[in-house]
């Protein structure tokens, strides 16, 4: 479903060259939930923007559903890291969710039905008429997720979506992300810098090195499909996987002198 081959991205300009992605190769089969972890500033957002067709790679290839990415691919939705800035503050919650459907040409009655359904799916059934700035951070991120679901994407990219919310909300939203994925069966690429979160959520965890970024390791998470904040996180297998990922990322940091 997602094919990334030798992806490299160098940002230029302002007299400073930043190699955000060194050489990243990654394949995600259809319907899989993959987490990408990496230290802050290693190019996770850059990777997502290349996948989403928002940014042209310096070299390498990116394919979504067999099609080379040249602009935003069909059936791909993104939940952005900056949730506060990704909702239109002049539109009500329902209108925010509806907007992509309008541009798709979905009829009014059908739009209303989808909006209701996706708001219910994220547990915000009664916030349809509110403005985003009247909601808490966690609720805003739910709206962003509802908008992505309503778009009915084949691929959902999420960029550290829960980094800025409190711990309790975060746990709820993590479970929401799993539920949505199981219910709608899309391919999910979930970026985070939180190792626990990555292991808890993913069927697979892809570890990125610090820049120039490569894939450090691609790890299958052999936890049962049914996950639970308490039971899963306190299990021994979870602890093993977690410390494995942790030590790999630490190693990578030490291996790089001067970082």
């Amino acid at each position, binding site marked *: 479903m997602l094919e990334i081959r030798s992806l490299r991205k160098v940002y230029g300009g302002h007299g400073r060259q930043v190699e955000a992605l060194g050489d990243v190769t990654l394949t995600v089969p259809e319907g899989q939930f993959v987490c990408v972890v990496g230290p802050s500033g290693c190019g996770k957002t850059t990777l997502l*923007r290349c996948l*989403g*067709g*928002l940014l042209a790679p310096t070299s390498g290839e990116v394919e979504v559903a067999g099609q080379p990415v040249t*602009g*935003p691919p069909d059936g*791909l*939705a*993104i939940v*952005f890291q*900056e949730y506060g*800035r*990704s909702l*239109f*503050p*002049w*539109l009500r919650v329902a209108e925010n969710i509806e*907007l*992509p459907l*309008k*541009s*798709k040409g979905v009829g009014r009655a059908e739009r209303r039905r989808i909006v209701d359904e996706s708001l219910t799916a994220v547990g915000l059934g009664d916030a349809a008429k509110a*403005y985003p*700035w*009247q909601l*808490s*951070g966690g609720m805003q991120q739910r709206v962003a997720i509802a*908008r992505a679901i309503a*778009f009915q994407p084949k691929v959902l990219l999420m960029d550290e979506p829960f980094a800025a919310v409190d711990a309790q909300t975060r746990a709820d939203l993590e479970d929401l992300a799993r539920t949505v994925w199981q219910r709608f069966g899309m391919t999910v690429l979930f970026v985070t810098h939180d190792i626990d979160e990555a292991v808890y959520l993913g069927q697979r965890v892809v570890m990125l090195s610090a820049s120039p970024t490569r894939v450090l390791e691609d790890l299958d998470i052999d936890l049962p499909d049914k996950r639970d904040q308490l039971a899963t996180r306190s299990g021994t297998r979870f602890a093993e996987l977690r410390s494995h990922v942790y030590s790999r990322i630490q190693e990578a940091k030490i291996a790089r002198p001067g970082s």
Partner: protein
Amino acid sequence: MSRALGRAGLLLGLPVILLVTWWFASAGSKSFYQPPLETIIKVFPATWTAARFRSDVLPSLGRLFLGYGLAVLLGIVLGVLIGAHRRLRALVEPLLEFLRAIPPPVLVPILILVAGLGDPTKVLVIVSGGIWPVLLNTVEGVRGVDQVLADTCRTYRICGWLRMRTFILRAASPQIVVGARQALSISIIMMVIGELLGATNGLGYTVVQFQRGFEIPEMWSGVFVLGLLGVLLSLAFTLVERRVLSWYHGVRAAERSGR
């Protein structure tokens, strides 16, 4: 209710004090050029009759609305074009700065030379003064649209006119409104200036006629009407602004309360 009264009191307080002061200071004045306020008010009903409204106030208002409307419309259209295209902006920005630095009244003789003394010229005079604040503010507003929202539009394929009206224009609207407000007061000034030079009717023309005919109290009453017009239009503008920018004030309030 009492709060509304309080606000009305604040709004009217200073004008009332000034008028009362004027009334007593000018009472019994023998000066030909500074008649008592009482005299000015006495001539008011006889001067500003329904016939005069039709013959002078309405034509002025017509030209003002047409000129102001065109200034705002052209300012927004050109501003969006220039703001959205970096190359074009680099090309025309020095020119715009130059044109803006010319005091608009200076253009009036030139416009009269080129376009004659008719009504179109008077509208053009208003446009030539009012367009700059709208244009320059729109350029800034469009240039400053949020990158995350722009990416959101691309991802969800919100494009064309839908993008223009739900994203670009709305995002730039706080700045456009600032420009439009400046343009309103400039337009009133330009309306009067246009009518001082070779007009056959209008508010500015009437005031000058009174002055030439040494009808000094009537002249003062005309100045009053102009002032009143400015206040009423500014109030109307505020009402429109409240509607258009209610989301913006909401966002600002939410930010201040620290979310």
